[in-house]
């Protein structure tokens, strides 16, 4: 059994009886137990529950009434609540939090028969770009363990990259799926805001948070997304938009992933290219363009004039929302509580001081500041106005092009500890991912080369709800490139 197999291959193995779901789960659990001590991808590995789910899946498969996802293993970022299982969100604040209910994502995937092998490590409350902000220790990049896997969904990305699971769910607020997908050499999709329910997904920045999927190839990403997405009445911001086209892709009813006769034009935003770090990266990017061009894809240079202010805009809005979303962690009802509180004030102050890490505190402080009387208009209101301008930039260019293509990150993965001293430099890592987040657009990152043995990602951005086009275009790229089939050097693991 090849752990780097696609879901399609695993599916046919299950359906033909080559192996059972329990055997498949055990196979990956063995890899998890072997490699996790080095990589630290997982916070919780609920083996018993996983094997129970797999047993149930085998029964369904035997009866012949299983769906396309039934019996396949996956992992969930530890931001998704899973009933009866520890859900920490990477924080000491929730070190004892056994979720009493299921997130919509966990419920849907379990309902489709998928087997959850573990809860993956992440930056605390999804705040970070390197996975070094986890209370449960940094995750390491399978391609080189001296390097970060990216964040905040670093555990999910690294786990898929090292084939500890075939696919994993993550969340993306300002790049938290795309950047780790790029750093770990896998594919990752952040869907349109509203595609995947946020119910039961611990909130960081509500107007930006979006669940999405990691896989080694685009088809795997599409399959997992089809199981996660869809309208949810429990989330008022959930889009009432049908998932038909994504389901069709995932189940192969749409003549596969081919674009057919559709001629597509991809826009190249010049503001992104100006920020490319060095000639090597330029070359990687050019190669990607050539691959598309030989397939008849047209390119056009376009301009997104407000790109340079996306990062500060993002950090103002995300911080403001986070500062109030995290007010509920007060030590009163659940989660971390300080020892021997002397009075209410002491309970609040010490529980929060001891329960939150530095980056979370930094964002609560800046967010509280930007919402305060006297600063609200200058920061929060202005950021909302700029957000509108950024969204308008995209609407304008989508009149002329079908998709946009950019690098996912300004460089490949950086070393552990390299940027921890300089938060602003760390925030600049999000320069290519935050604009589309602010506009709520769907984005896909696919591997497009390596430098110094470390992977790079290509980001495709589509208009709202055009995930199917995004996935088909990503598929076209992977049909004519092989970076998505490359694995981390076995020696690195």
């Amino acid at each position, binding site marked *: 059994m090849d752990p780097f197999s696609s879901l399609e291959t695993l599916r046919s193995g299950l359906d033909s009886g080559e192996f059972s779901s329990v055997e498949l789960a055990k196979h990956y659990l063995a890899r998890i137990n072997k490699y996790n001590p080095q990589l630290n991808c997982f916070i919780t590995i609920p083996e018993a529950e996983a094997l129970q789910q797999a047993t149930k899946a085998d029964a369904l498969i035997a009866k012949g009434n299983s769906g396309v996802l039934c019996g396949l293993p996956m992992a969930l970022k530890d931001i998704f609540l899973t009933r009866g299982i520890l*859900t920490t969100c990477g924080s000491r604040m929730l070190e004892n939090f056994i979720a009493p209910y299921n*997130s919509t994502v966990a419920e849907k995937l379990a309902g489709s028969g998928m087997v959850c092998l573990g809860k993956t490590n992440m930056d605390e409350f999804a705040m970070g770009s390197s996975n070094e902000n986890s209370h449960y220790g940094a995750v390491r990049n399978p391609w080189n363990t001296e390097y970060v896997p990216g964040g905040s969904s670093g555990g999910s990305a690294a786990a898929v990259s090292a084939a500890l699971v075939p696919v994993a769910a993550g969340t993306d607020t300002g790049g938290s799926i795309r950047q780790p997908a790029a750093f770990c050499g896998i594919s990752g999709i952040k869907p349109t805001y509203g595609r995947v329910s*946020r119910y039961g997904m611990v909130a960081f920045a509500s107007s930006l948070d979006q669940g999405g999927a990691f896989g080694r190839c685009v088809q795997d990403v599409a399959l997992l997304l089809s199981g996660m997405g869809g309208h949810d009445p429990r989330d008022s*911001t959930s889009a009432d938009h049908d998932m038909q086209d994504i389901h069709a892709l995932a189940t192969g009813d749409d003549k596969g992933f081919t674009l057919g006769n559709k001629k597509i034009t991809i826009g190249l935003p010049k503001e992104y290219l100006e920020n490319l770090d060095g000639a090597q990266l330029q070359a990687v990017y050019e190669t990607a363009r050539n691959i598309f061009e030989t397939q008849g894809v047209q390119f056009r240079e376009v301009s997104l004039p407000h790109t340079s202010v996306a990062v500060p805009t993002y950090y103002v809005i995300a911080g403001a929302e986070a500062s109030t979303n995290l007010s509920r962690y007060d030590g009163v009802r659940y989660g971390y509580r300080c020892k021997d509180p002397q009075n209410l004030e002491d309970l609040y102050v010490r529980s929060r001081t001891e329960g939150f890490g530095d980056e979370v505190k930094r964002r609560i402080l800046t967010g509280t500041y930007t919402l305060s009387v006297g600063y609200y208009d200058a920061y929060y209101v202005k950021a909302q106005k700029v957000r509108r301008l950024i969204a308008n930039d995209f609407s304008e260019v989508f009149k002329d092009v079908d998709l946009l293509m950019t690098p996912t990150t300004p460089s490949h993965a950086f070393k552990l500890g390299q940027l921890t001293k300089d938060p602003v430099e760390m925030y600049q890592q999000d320069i290519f991912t935050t604009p589309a987040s602010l506009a709520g657009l769907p984005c896909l990152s696919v591997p497009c080369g390596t430098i110094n043995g470390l992977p790079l990602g290509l980001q495709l951005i589509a208009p709202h709800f055009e995930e199917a086009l995004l996935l088909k275009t990503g598929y076209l790229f992977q049909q004519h490139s092989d970076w998505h089939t490359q694995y981390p050097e076995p020696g690195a693991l």
Partner: protein
Amino acid sequence: MAWEVVIGLEIHVQLATRSKIFSGASTRFGEAPNTQACAVDLALPGVLPVLNEQAISHALTFGLAIGAELGKRSSFDRKNYFYPDLPKGYQITQFAHPIVGRGAIELVLEDGEQLTVGITRAHLEEDAGKSLHENMHGLTGIDLNRAGTPLLEIVSEPDMRNAKQAVAYFQKIHALVKYLRICDGNLNEGSMRCDANVSIRKPGEKKLGVRTEIKNLNSFRFLEKAINFEIGRQTEVLENGGSLQQATLLYDADKNETRPMRSKETSEDYRYFPDPDLLPVLISQEIIDTLKSRLPELPEARRQRFEKMPGLSSYDAARLSEDPDIADYFEAVVEQSKLTKLSANWVMGELSALLNRLDLPIEKAPVSAQQLGQLVARISDNTISGNIAKQIFEDLANNPNVAVHIDDIIESQNLGQLNDKNALNDIVEQVIDDNPVQAQQYRDGKIKILAYLVGQVMKQSQGKANPKEVSALLLTKLGSL
């Protein structure tokens, strides 16, 4: 020195919805602590608010009833502060774009004076939980049953000039929301609470004085007393050359005084901003039209209708229309009895006294409106006397049986009024024979003694004799001798 008093009220109305404003938990009052709070009310990680449509239509119904501008696009904001009975660390409220805009309420005061009170706005928000201090042995208990109960906060203009006006306004809103069936109006369960903003200034002064806000008043009486105490306190401070501080006060009913409230957070900066978990609420004209067509008859219209009923004074009409349940009861009595004034007297007299004595709301009246209507009809057609009617009413009050018809009671207990001339004649002659002294006194011109003789006849007939007939007969007999 004379001072002009300026009062504005913020009234919190708990909307009568089955579930909470942002969760599916029940809003039932009086259940065991924390049994009516779900994951959303507890603010568990990952939960999201979903707006209750009923709360929206209740708020719009109120807006329509006061002729207010309606917010066709309203939205929710977060009001941030830490407190143990506020699980999320913020309250979801409507700060920037309320659902109900400007409107007005017309009041008729006791002395007949008319007053228009402007409504600045009314907005939706969620109630907080309760902090419990009694029986907690020095600890604080948190009950989140109330957390998330929908509130409509109705903010008035500072249009009231004394405590009586403020009370009249509060009563008017109370009657209105009950009429609209958007609130149960149970003040003692906290279904309506009010904050009073009070300031004083020299007459003619344009600028408002420094105001204080008295929080959480839940009775008409306390509102009046608290305002009057606060006016006295402010007057005393200013007349002694002192200056007032803007403050939030609590009224202590036991001591009849206001005192500063413990601040919820040292800073008063609530950091309002739009709640990203909720989309703006867009209201179509179609929804507004539908709600408008469903508006019940409003208190003012009903009062005017009652005033036109035969025999009813404007006082009767006002009192009977105050409470929709009383008005409904009264109309049901009239429908049965076909008599307006006598029905009104019984509802406002015997029935009202009985309900007060038993401390019951009219929905739980031991005598049904149909029964009271039958009773009134039988008094009117002389089947029974007023005294017998009161006796039947009391018996029913003590042993309620809403199924029984009044005519059956009259028949089975033989309570029908004695109208038979021959029978009455016999009793009257007997009484005259038994009371020769009094009969002679009457004949000698002491006319007042007649009442005594009538009483004797009534006694003989066990109250069933028709007193008018008895008087007439006595006069005939005594005069003819």
